[in-house]
């Protein structure tokens, strides 16, 4: 019997040790996967800096990159919510265009001009909620619903401006499109567009990681039928995420309108959905749903912006920009897969 007792003690202690090692290893693993594509982003930045003879890491250029990443970041943040539930939103580009058109049209009315910003946001929210309702209540596949609204909302955006460009050089709140927030007078300032994008990321992070709703979103993406059985109102979660995606598309529309002072129902936002989805997936969020983080999305959006900016900076021709962009996207994910190989489950 004593021998038995000893035998019992031994495995117990080793498992405790093992558990500690396990935890350490897990922390490493989580750190690595949280870092995600950051190394790729850094490599790209340094590469472009060298190749562009020092033009990349200048205050002005970094400001431009941030500003260019802003709209896509906002769209991708909304897309992250949607993809986390295992869905997809192809309509963000069209909703962006419709919201910008609605906002600009309103901004030209003398009395109501100041309301253009909320109007754009509400337009986006409205379309998003309709998407969500169709998906959640009629149980239609997200791809088809948002593909349908990609087309239909594009048509509405064109109707709003009677198929012309709406232009308003004196649009209120234009500063959000072209102004900068001065942090240190004369030395450090950040474009308002980037400030908005960062705020969107922060709010998204809060919702996803610090609220009950956030856990529910991950749960619906992880296992929808289990979520339903666990008492989660899946339909409400779905309407929420598509609503957020629409709202952020509306915000993106407002940002573009303020940046361009103009919008065109046909041209604005064409195939923005692909960039947004790419940012989300580059950021490590899984299409299956339930896995991913908003910080990854931010890095993904920055990679796309750095790539566009850097290739022009070093004077690569338009055609080769296509080829290189495509290869870099595949390469980045391959690198990521390789990097995680040791640590991830198969």
């Amino acid at each position, binding site marked *: 019997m004593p021998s*038995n007792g000893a*035998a*019992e003690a031994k*495995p117990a202690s*080793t*498992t405790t040790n*093992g*558990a500690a*090692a*396990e*935890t350490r*290893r*897990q922390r490493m693993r989580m750190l690595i996967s949280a870092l995600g594509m950051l190394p790729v982003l850094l490599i790209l930045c340094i590469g472009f800096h060298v190749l562009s003879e020092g033009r990349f890491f200048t205050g002005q250029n970094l400001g431009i990159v941030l500003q260019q990443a802003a709209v896509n970041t906002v769209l991708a943040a909304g897309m992250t919510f949607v993809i986390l539930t295992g869905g997809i939103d192809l309509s963000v580009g069209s909703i962006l265009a419709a919201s910008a058109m609605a906002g600009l049209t309103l901004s030209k009315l003398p009395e109501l001009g100041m309301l253009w910003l909320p109007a754009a946001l509400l337009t986006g929210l409205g379309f998003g909620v309709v998407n969500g309702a169709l998906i959640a209540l009629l149980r239609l596949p997200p791809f088809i619903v948002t593909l349908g609204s990609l087309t239909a909302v594009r048509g509405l955006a064109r109707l709003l401006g009677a198929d012309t460009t709406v232009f308003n050089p004196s649009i209120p709140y234009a500063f959000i499109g072209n102004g900068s927030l001065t942090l240190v007078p004369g030395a450090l300032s950040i474009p308002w567009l980037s400030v908005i994008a960062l705020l969107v990321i922060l709010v998204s992070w809060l919702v996803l990681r*610090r*609220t*009950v*709703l*956030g*856990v*529910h979103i*991950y*749960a619906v993406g*992880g*296992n929808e*039928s*289990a*979520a*339903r*059985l*666990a*008492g*989660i*109102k899946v339909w409400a979660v779905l309407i929420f995420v598509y609503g957020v995606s629409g709202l952020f598309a509306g915000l993106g529309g407002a940002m573009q309108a303020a940046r361009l002072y103009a919008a065109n129902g046909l041209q604005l936002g064409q195939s923005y959905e692909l960039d947004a989805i790419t940012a989300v997936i580059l950021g490590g969020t899984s299409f299956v749903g*339930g*896995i991913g983080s908003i910080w990854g999305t931010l890095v993904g959006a920055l990679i796309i912006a750095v790539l566009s900016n850097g290739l022009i900076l070093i004077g690569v021709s338009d055609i080769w920009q296509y080829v290189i962009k495509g290869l870099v996207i595949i390469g980045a994910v391959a690198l990521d897969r390789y990097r995680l190989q*040791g*640590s991830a*489950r198969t």
Partner: protein
Amino acid sequence: MNDPILEMRGVSKTFFGIKALRAVDLIVYAGEIHALMGENGAGKSTLMKILSGAYRPDPGGEIRIEGKAVRIEGPLGGRAAGISIIYQELSLAPNLTVAENIYLGREMSRSGLLARGAMREGVGPILTRLGADFLPSTLVAHLSMGQRQLVEIARALHARSKILIMDEPTTSLSAAESERLFALIRQLRAEGLAIIYISHRMDEVYALGDRVTVLRDGRLVGSLDKPEIRADTIVRLMVGRDVSSFYKKDHDPEAGRGHPVLAAIDMADGQRVKGCSLTVHAGEVVGLAGLIGAGRTELAHLIIGASPKTSGRLELEGRPVEIRTPGEALEAGIAYLTEDRKALGLFLDMSCLDNINLAVLARDAKLGWVLDRDKARERADRAFAGLSIRAANAGVPAGGLSGGNQQKVLLSRLLAIAPKVLILDEPTRGVDVGAKSEIYSIIDNLAKAGTAILVISSDLPEIIGICDRVVVMRAGHIAGEVTRGPNSPLTQEDIMALATGMEHLDA
């Protein structure tokens, strides 16, 4: 019986730095049923997956089949070596038919074209032998858990191999199907097959096992020959202590039984459940027994609003309640443990912590929405300690746990709710003896505290061990009820007679 058909020596397996197996030996002879036992997470399934070629072992060990050293490369290698396996996790393609699943990977074809008809005919005999009540052309998606398990068994048997591995084949089978399977297994043993049998149901091991090998923490802790196979010896090897009082039933059904808490009246779904009524009182443990496909799970789903009902009503503590969704059931105080923990229960990519807290997040939240992370961690730690869940910590994804530990995580979620009515669908499926006795004592304690409990189980000894009375379903109807009297204990025979519709013959 002199030369072993299978020798595994010094087999180890490491998952990303975690040792799941440490130099395990296993020797199996032709014509024996070799039971492999061990607690949840001991490494049984891992060892078998190495044998079937699903996992590659760490370098160093050796596998000999009929004396020849072999390297098993992938599932095809396992099959070529004469090994077939029923995996613990069902591994069927739900979108294919029964016949297609059974032939998957070795389809029949004639002049390049698929021979669907021949395949359908080819699986007929084995399905008949297993007593399957579905056709070869049925889509697996339309089968119940138990029926799917029969398909897995049919697939393994159909492969006609020398070594047959069965990793918990009876978890979804009820007594009748299990008996039929046992007869088949004995027959295969007589034909000279070596059968490796994994189960957490002790009675099955006593009934079948010729030899028992026990694993603990990835190590071999001992082998027992037929005469030594007794509950005390096996359990002591497995858990390192005696588990004396296995079924625990301290609550007094007569004294403790309170008012009726849950009354389901005339529930039907127009398909599988045809007008069922039952009542559960406070402090009572009621069993719901029946053959597979009898409609027990469906009835539970109707009660909690997981599927739409065509008729019927519910009363909770005497008052009528309208429940249309599982969420409403939870709000009313009715919690349900699903029989299909992977598909309908757990969130495999989420942490155990989130899995345990999911149903009470809103209740715990600060300001109505903000997560209370301290409370959640406390609750998870308490669950880990209380049910001795084995995982590094509560932060690991639930998908990485062994089956039994996953079950405990899922159960913890329901216990966190502290419901009035607890419906447990196969609560100890895939759970080891130690954990089983823990779960039984939890059930017992809840009953003592006044919870009304309905236990759906296909494990008759379990039902008899823990329930105060047993309602039996047959083909969508309530076939009758078996009650424990002062001098008349519940018996398997009474329950089986009702479940199969032969009560009049026995009487």
